[in-house]
């Protein structure tokens, strides 16, 4: 925890609670039919998202797949604009065109959620090529689920990044399941980070993805390495407490398994760490939680009061001028 002050740690706590409360609200709105389509919750993986984004500098880049709300919030996208996007409103992050899976902010170098598994990996390599081409000190943190490691994009992208020494951290958020398929049913090598060897890149190992400080430290190390030397492949061992998406019957895992992981809730664990480290912090943490609840309520109010897109919005912005 060297160099991490109380303000920073409390802000991480705030972000983790924000993701949790924001998504709980999303689930509620989904059940009310206000959010449509497919909703993939990040609940349970907050420590991985918050710890890893905290390790990035403003000039660094983050890009991920469709389970993107947590990372978007951690990177600093406005909860109001995200919620408006969830509700398909004109004031949403992408004006209601993208929805839940395609949150992005150019200003914050958050290059988005992507709806096609693995499709964003070679784009991450392209963004990293830009940094190298312009000789800029920037790192690209590319998140993917464990399921994405078996599609062809993974192979081409990792090889290319190694051949060209691109500054990319390939971070597998290993939550145990690609939709409903357990890692050992989909991958010959179940320790996914070990594939680094085959590509001739640094094996960044595994980190406890339920421990925000451990994730922060591991990604910080990887970022330092990547900016000087080239790509790193690593795994954050995490777990999603909810189904793959809303309405997942979860026949592929037992209730006992979910309960076992829930006992190691990253937010509860982090709260415990903070309470042990700082005397009398409990009151401050409670206040943070109250403030987060208010932020989420404001976001919902903003989204619900925002206008729906028009026909003109539908046909606009097919081509850039």
């Amino acid at each position, binding site marked *: 925890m060297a160099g991490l002050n109380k303000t920073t740690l409390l802000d991480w706590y705030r972000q983790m609670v924000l993701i949790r409360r924001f998504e709980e609200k999303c689930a509620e709105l989904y059940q009310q039919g206000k959010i449509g389509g497919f909703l993939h919750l990040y609940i349970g993986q907050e420590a991985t998202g918050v710890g890893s984004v905290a390790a990035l500098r403003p000039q660094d880049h983050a890009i991920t797949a469709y389970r993107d709300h947590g990372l978007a919030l951690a990177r600093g996208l406005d909860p109001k604009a995200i919620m408006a996007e969830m509700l398909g409103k004109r004031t949403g992050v992408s004006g209601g065109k993208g929805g839940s899976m395609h949150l*992005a902010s150019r200003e914050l170098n958050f290059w988005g959620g992507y709806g096609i598994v693995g499709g964003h990996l070679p784009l*991450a390599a*392209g963004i*990293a090529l830009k940094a190298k*081409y312009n000789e800029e000190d920037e790192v690209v943190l590319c998140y993917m689920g464990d399921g994405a490691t078996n599609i062809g994009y993974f192979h081409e992208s990792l090889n290319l990044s190694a051949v060209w020494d691109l500054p990319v951290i390939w971070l597998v958020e290993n939550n145990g399941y690609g939709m409903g398929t357990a890692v050992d049913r989909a991958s010959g090598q179940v320790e996914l980070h070990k594939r680094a060897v085959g590509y001739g890149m640094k094996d960044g190992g595994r980190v406890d993805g339920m421990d925000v400080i451990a994730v922060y430290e591991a990604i910080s190390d990887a970022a330092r390495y990547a900016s000087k030397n080239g790509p790193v492949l690593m795994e954050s061992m995490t777990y999603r407490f909810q189904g793959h998406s809303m309405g997942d019957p979860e026949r592929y895992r037992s209730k006992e398994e979910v309960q076992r992981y829930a006992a190691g809730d990253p937010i509860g664990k982090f709260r415990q760490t903070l309470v042990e480290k700082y005397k009398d912090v409990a009151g401050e943490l409670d206040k943070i939680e109250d403030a987060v609840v208010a932020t989420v309520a404001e976001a919902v109010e903003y989204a619900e009061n925002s206008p729906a897109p028009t026909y003109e919005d539908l046909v606009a912005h097919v081509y850039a001028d």
Partner: protein
Amino acid sequence: MPVMTLIEAVTQAMDEELARDPRVFIVGEDVGARGGVFRATMGLHAKYGSERVVDSPLAELSIVAIGIGAALADLRPICEIQFADFIHPAFNQIVNEAAKMYYRSGEQWNVPMVIRAPYGGGISGALYHSQSVEAFFTHVPGLKVVIPSTPQDAKGLLKSAVRDPNPVLFFEPKKGYRAIKGDVPEGEYTIPIGPARVARSGRDLSVFAYGMMAHYTTIAAEKVAREDGIDAEVIDLRTLLPVDKGAILESVKKTGKALVVHEDTFTMGYGAEVAAIIADEGFNYMDAPVKRLAGPDVPAMPYSHSMQEFFMPNPDKIAAAIRDLAAY
């Protein structure tokens, strides 16, 4: 004006754009010291170095995707796919990422990139080195699709493609790389993406074509003028998407008859859209049904010379189709 081949015009366009804008770079298989499979990038590696004329692994999806990522980050990639037939592994990247990015990001990102690929048959390349793939992509709003038929257009349109803020697929008729020669203006010029070109003005009927078939159609039109006194108008569409409806309708308004020629297969080919535009908006001008001359509906152009000749439209076949339509 200097005369050059179509491929020399392509090379010159890239050379000038590399010199003009440091953000422009080329990436593809063996585009570096080797100069590309057809030598389109010949000399550029020596002039601009390995950082700007970049050899990639043999991996088409990542050639395109690395270009998309770099374009999002404000570089100006020119991605070379060795043969249009090899573009299919990158289909998802082109259709799902490049074409949709500006639209789905709420205008935050656009994708200023060019994907160049030689297309078409007639070189005994067999099934996987002869394909015409344009119709897959002309169905995708958000993309631009350009196919030149002359060196002058190849150079001017490619320069425009590099400067375009959108993803442009630039298909080059490889049979014409060295077979098509023509005048190219000296000095800096561009040709806008969008407008079709009247390759030959005529009053009896209109023939719409692009790429190698536009070249052949011009030859066929001269032949029927000479031998039969038929005055055919030839419209080189050259930009397939966005489609230049105005040019199509203006021509049939004058002639009342239309033939569309492409070497891509017949059913659901680009000619179907041209015919539909005329049926929809030019019906009252027409004195004859819209005719199409295209490749047969077989999976791909086979190797054997005889079958290749059956497959490909050529000046004689086009001349025959013109005569039939003129006689209607």
